[in-house]
């Protein structure tokens, strides 16, 4: 496992994971926050505007994070 962790850290893929994970976390937080403020589920544009990215990038980050989570599961569990 140490080997695999080092490999994941060293070959640059972690850079992708980290930055996407961060964006995905921001999306989740912003989504919760806006839901509280509005008293309803936010639209994708409302979240995208707050994070200053395109709605399409919101979609991408969410899915990439979901994929990373499932890779993480198979590698570490």
């Amino acid at each position: 496992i140490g080997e695999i962790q080092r490999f994941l850290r060293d070959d640059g893929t972690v850079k992708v994971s980290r930055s996407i994970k961060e964006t995905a976390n921001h999306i989740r937080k912003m989504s919760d926050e806006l839901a509280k403020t509005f008293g309803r589920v936010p639209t994708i544009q409302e979240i995208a505007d707050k994070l200053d990215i395109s709605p399409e990038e919101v979609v991408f980050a969410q899915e990439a994070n979901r994929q990373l989570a499932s890779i993480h599961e198979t590698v570490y569990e």
Partner: protein
Amino acid sequence: MRNRMALSFTAVSANESFARVSVAAFVAQLDPTMDELTEIKTVVSEAVTNAIIHGYGENDEGIVYVEVELVDGTVHLVVRDEGLGISNLEEARQPLYTSKPELERSGMGFTIMENFMDDVSVESSRLEGTTVTLVKRLSKQNVLCN
């Protein structure tokens, strides 16, 4: 304005995620709620997985076709394969029915599609393939229209 896209890809499970992103990114233009988008992504997963697993039996020579049209705030989605087809459609659409219990599939694919979409129709013929047509009206557009 009508805005359309069409997508086709190799019938392998690895492409399920790509299909979800592609459809969701296209639909994002109509500014759906996050819940609506999740529902659409789930439906894409179910229909595309069916095409790959049941339609083509995971034969990676197969091609899955997806089309999306956005008309006045309504999403029209078509998922099509040229695979084995479904011999008994009524049975296939029953909740919990699955022809592959050994794969630990839930038999809930069609039921999920029906729950998340406003309209679901399925056409299929043996050895020619299956076309699933799905329609969803987005809530925001309803509000604007009322």
